[in-house]
Structure formats: C-alpha cells, structure tokens
C-alpha cells in the first residue's frame, strides 16, 4: 500500500474514532434533559423604533452599547445611530459601496467596515476636529470581507471569502495571525465572551473554534447541509449557535465537542441570514430570507415567536449588550428595534 493511501486511511479511521468518542458521551440528549421544563410562552415583540435613512439594502448592523449602533448599506454609507432617539450621530460615506459588514469597537471610539474591496477600513469616531476619517485600511485578504469584530482599540479580527480569518494590529496595519483551515468562503465570525477564542462559519458547511493566542484551530463542527451564514456564541461562552442556507440553526457544545440540537421546521424553507441569542440565551432570534425573523426556545427547539414587518430579506440582527432590545436590518433599507 502506497504511503499516501496509508495516510488517507489513517485520517479516515481517526475521523471514525472521533465520531465514536462523541457518541460515547451521549448519555442523554438535550431534549431528554429538558423534557420536564416548560416551553417559554409565546414571545411577542413589538417594533419600538424604525430607523430610516439608508437608500438601499442594509447588509450589516452592530451594537456599540445599549443605544448606539452602526449599520452598513449598499448605498455606500455607514450610519451610526442613537437608536433611542433615532438620530443619526454620524453618516460616513464609503469609498466602496459594496460593503458587507460593519463593527463597533467596545470602547465606542471606532467603527470598521469592509466588503468587495477586500479591505477592512477603520474609522476614528473621536477625532480631534470632530470629523470622522479613515484611520487605517487593512489590506491583505484576497477575497471579500464578510465579517469583522474588534477585540479592543488595537486589534480586530476579520473573516474573508478567501477562506481565512485574520487578526490585525490596527496601529501598524499588519496581519498578526492568519487562521487558515476552512475549505470554503468564511462568512461570519463571533468572539468569545472572554476574548481568548473566536468562531467562524464558512461555505464548507463547518464551524471552527480558533485560539486567538496561538492561531490554532481547536475544534471543528459539521452537520449543516449548506453554507453557514451566521454564527454566534451562546452567552455562557461554552456553546456555539450557527445559522445556515439549509434553513436550520444548530447549537454545538464546546465541552462535549458535538451538536446538541437543531432548530428547524418543515414550514421554513429559506436560508438563515443572521442570528443573535437573547441575554440569557434562552431565546435565539434568527433572520431568514423569507423576510421574517423567527424566535426559538433554545432548549426546547420550538418556535415561540415571529418578527414580521420587513418588506424584504432580513440580512442582519443584533441584541444590545444589556439585552433590552434587538435590531433587525433588511434589504428593504430599514432598521427596526424590537422588544
């Protein structure tokens, strides 16, 4: 038997052993454990604010704190909103209108965006003269920028259509770490509550957990039947939620290294575009291509609510850090605040 053949066999048998090891800890499923728990009652959220101002499809939204958020649209603008008053705090014109993602720094000092220009542009909101200017352009990706998230004012992580994620040092504009391993475009990323790890979802149908410090892929999760478009951490930091074009969301646990539950319904045919857990994690809000957002009881895997009000695809969703409200952004050019 040739060397290559032997190696391939070894790899396959290892994968089989891992499947068996995962099965070995399945002493009880999540459904069994929560059989005695009641389903959360019907959750009815109302639109409290509608943020108008974008002229085209909204592709991304990200909360900075309990009131401020930033949104990106194909009209070539980044708008920073005080969602409580619906005032536009900043309207930032972009060099490229093909923007796909935006992010707010935890400090509130900066925002970032990127898209088909393959770059991540960082904007300083607290410049001396009050004008918002490009602070850095992080260029090195060879594919579109699908998502970006700040770790702090000096570091940002990006995911790209070139199948990699990168940790950048903003001040020098250089790549500190390249996270390679996905076999398809990386579509989305989420940072762990402790900032030591992050997760990425890709068009190879898998989600990967990466160690920020040493650049290694710690775990890989499969099971989806199509692109993973959205990904996020469960609030306890020990589980990961994914949303896919196969119209389902899945919950994977990091410590048992496997899928716990799938959120799907035969009446839902469209892909999931975005998702966000509620403050406790008991609810998962997911945006779909069919213009609606569904609310799932994360433990019982039942739909407990719907947010309908958009006239086109819901492309992005986010819950405030204090859990008070959620924001949906749509191709209909509006953002809505719900609770």
């Amino acid at each position: 038997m040739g060397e290559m053949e032997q190696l391939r066999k070894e790899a396959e048998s290892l994968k089989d052993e891992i499947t068996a090891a995962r099965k070995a800890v399945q002493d009880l499923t999540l459904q069994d454990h929560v059989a005695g728990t009641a389903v959360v009652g019907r959750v009815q959220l109302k639109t409290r604010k509608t943020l108008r101002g974008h002229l085209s499809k909204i592709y991304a939204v990200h909360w900075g704190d309990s009131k401020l958020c930033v949104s990106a649209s194909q009209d070539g603008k980044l708008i920073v909103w005080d969602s409580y008053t619906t005032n536009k705090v900043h309207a930032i014109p972009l060099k490229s209108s093909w923007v796909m993602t935006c992010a707010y720094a935890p400090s509130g000092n900066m925002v970032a965006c990127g898209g088909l220009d393959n770059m991540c542009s960082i904007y300083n909101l607290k410049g001396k003269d009050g004008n918002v200017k490009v602070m850095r352009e992080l260029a090195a990706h060879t594919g579109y920028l699908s998502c970006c998230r700040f770790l702090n004012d000096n570091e940002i992580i990006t995911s790209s259509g070139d199948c990699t994620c990168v940790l950048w040092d903003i001040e020098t504009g250089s790549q500190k770490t390249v996270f390679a391993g996905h076999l398809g475009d990386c579509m989305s990323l989420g940072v762990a509550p402790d900032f030591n790890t992050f997760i990425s979802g890709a068009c190879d149908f898998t989600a990967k957990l990466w160690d920020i410090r040493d650049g290694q892929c710690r775990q890989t999760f499969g099971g989806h039947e199509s692109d993973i478009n959205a990904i996020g951490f469960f609030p306890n930091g020990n589980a990961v939620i994914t949303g896919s074009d196969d119209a389902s969301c899945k919950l994977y646990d990091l410590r048992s290294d496997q899928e716990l539950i799938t959120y799907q319904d035969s009446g839902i045919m469209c892909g999931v575009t975005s998702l966000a857990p509620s403050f406790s994690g008991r609810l998962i809000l997911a945006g779909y291509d069919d213009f609606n957002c569904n609310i799932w009881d994360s433990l019982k895997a039942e739909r407990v609510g719907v947010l309908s009000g958009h006239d086109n695809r819901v492309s992005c969703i986010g819950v405030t850090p204090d859990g008070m409200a959620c924001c949906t952004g749509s191709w209909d050019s509006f953002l809505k605040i719900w609770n």
Partner: protein
Amino acid sequence: MAKNNSLHPNSNGETEDSPNMLVYRKMEDVIARMQDEKNGIPIRTVKSFLSKIPSVFSVEALHLGTLMAAHGYFFPISDHVLTLKDDGTFYRFQTPYFWPSNCWEPENTDYAVYLCKRTMQNKARLELADYEAESLARLQRAFARKWEFIFMQAEAQAKVDKKRDKIERKILDSQERAFWDVHRPVPGCVNTTEVDIKKSSRMKKPHKTRKSVYGLQNDIRSNSPTHTPAPEAKQPTEEELREQIKFWQAQLDRHRLKMSKVAESLLSYTEQYSDYDPFLCTPDPSNPWISDDTTFWEMEASKEPGQTRVRRWGFVINEVLKDPVGREQFLKFLESEFSSENLRFWLAVQELKKRPIREVPTRVQEIWEEFLAAGAPSAINVDSKSYDKTTQNVKDPGRYAFEDAQEHIYKLMKSDSYSRFIRSSAYQELLQAKKKGKSLIPKRLPAVVQSC
C-alpha cells in the same frame, strides 16, 4: 447518514449547486404535493382557463404561499404582482420549464423579444403595462443595431403561438408572463432573483446561466462578464495529510464532557439569567424602550449598584470581574484585607493585552517588577512551572507573556478571594440595601405563560 454528493463540498469547497437549490427543491416538493391528483389542491377549468381555487389560508400558509408565488411557482392569473391572497383569486401553476431551479438568468435580449412579441399579438388582451412599455422603449434604444434581428425572432415566436390551440396559448402566455414577473418584476415589487453579493461571486455555472429562453443564437447576445471555470479539485498533499492526521489525533485525545452535564449546565445557566433577560422578565424599574423612562440606564451608569446587579456578582467570579463597579468593590474589599495584589496583577495583565504593540515591552517590564521580580512590592505567589515560563517570556515580551501566571492567579482568586468576598459583610450589605422598597424578585412578563 449518506449525504447526497451535490450537497457536500469537495476538497476545494466547490459545490454542484447554488445555495438556492436547497430552497427550490423544498418548494418543488410542496408543489408536487399540491398537484397530486388525489390529495392535492382541486383544479377546475373556469371560463376556458385551468385554475385552482384556494381554500381558506392560515397566516403561516399565506406567508409560505406568497414566498412560493414570489419565486414563480404559481401565480395569480390576472395580476402582475406575485403574491398569494385569501380573497378567492384564481391561481395557476407554473410549468416546470420556467422553474427557478433551472437557474435562469435571462438576458435583456430575451426580454426584448418577449415584449416585442406581445405588441404583435391580440392587443386587447395583451397590452403592455406602463412599466413594460418603458422597458421596451429603453431596450429599443440599447439594441438599436440588433433590432431587426430581435424583431424577426419576435415575429417567428408570434407565428408559432398563433398555430397553437387557443386554450393552450392562453395558458402558456400567462406562464410566460409570470416568468418575466419574476425576472423583471413590477417596479416596487421585491426581486426574488436578487442574490446576496457574497454568494453571487461563487456561482460559476456558465452552461446553466447562459442559455436563452427563446433559443436565440450566441451571436446576437452581448457577452456577459466571463465566469471563471471552477478550479480542478485538489487532492491534499502528503504534508497536508500529515497535518490533518495530527489535528484529528489531537481532537480524538481531547476530553469530552458528558451530554447530561452539558445539558444541566445550559439549563441552569438560562434559568439563572432568565431573571436578567428583558425578553423574558420585566427589568427593574422598566424597559426604557417601552416606558420611555431611562432610569434603568442611569442606575447602570451610576456608582451605586442596584440589588439585582449585586446579586449577579454572586453567580460566578466573571460577573464581578466584568462589571466595573463590581471590580471596584472587590478591590476595595481585598485592600481592606491587605491581599489585593492578585486582583491587581490580573487587572494589569488584562489591560496589557489591549495596549498598542509598541507599549507592550515597557509595560511587561513594569508588571514584572511590581509583581514577580525578586523583592517585588506586590509579590504574588505563582507555581514554579508558571514562574519559570514567565521568566522566559519576559525576555522576549509579548502581549501574552503572563498568560500562564494569570491563569494560575485566576484560579486562586476563584477559589479563595472571591468566595471570601461574597461571604463578606461588605458584599452582604450591598445585597440587602433596600432602594425605595423595591422587591428583590424580578417580575416575569405577563406574556410568558408557563405552558407544558
């Protein structure tokens, strides 16, 4: 479970089908069931049209039906707008030729032929709508040089149509019109063929997207931007295989927690934090978005922590470390015991990780001097292994020089200082403080009825 090949990516991440194919297949499944002779929707011939009569629809069914109509699987017989309404309107099923799963991306030349053909037919029934007339005028300008050819094609199509049986013609006309309603929607309607730009750059199937609806030859069609052919499927190299094996071996060796423990931990976490989830429990005093009263945020920002906030500190050490006021109180308590060096070290290392890279070496040195060097003023106790590793790291200082030491100190604080803090009278007093007679128990939202 064996997976259909076309759904699973090969080693290059390429797939046979676009992500939309999954959706189309599901819709076609439903269509098949709707059209089933025995159990499907009744079809009647009404005034020489083959139509179906919709029964009363639930909200869910209306939503799903509108979605399928918008994609063009069935359509109202007398309206350009593709929705499903519960008002007795008649609908017709679309012929499979025009189904979206055939990956149509009809060119404007096809649209021009279609509109031109419409003007040649029986005007009374098929008069162009305003937006269609505008489109035709635009296309005539754009294709001025090719117009003679387009006209000829339209004539040929019209001739073929005239030969058809009257009923067949009416059905085909309506199906063709519905096809164009999907690909050239009425202004103001959602275009369901719009693709997320992240996906469109990956759809590389030239043989599917370039065929003409009317079989027009290539020479008159303008060249679309070329789709690059998919790269050859790459087999992993020997080195890559070895890397993969290393990865899988490490995965196999990892410890896996039992599902029952995981499930229990998830359940208890969500139960503990449900009281703090504004979607499940009314916040105290109110949700500013609903009541227009920002007291909640003012309280969060103030140095005086409310009881519910203080109660959270008692859940787990991270809650204290996350909350600036919690950190302050924790530090104050430890200082009163003259044992604050651990927390101060932990805080310093956290702050170091956020610094710009050029400030890191100096700061590492400062932290080393303050907490770890021989004779350090705030000496901390670290295990010898971590101490040796840190000594090495400090020689080539980076943001993570103190990771091992920090982890050790974190564990110490968790088991020792933190539990003392929670049991301390300082903490207990904060917990008991009664503000305006408000109760400690948060109110569950009335909408959340515990059902079984």
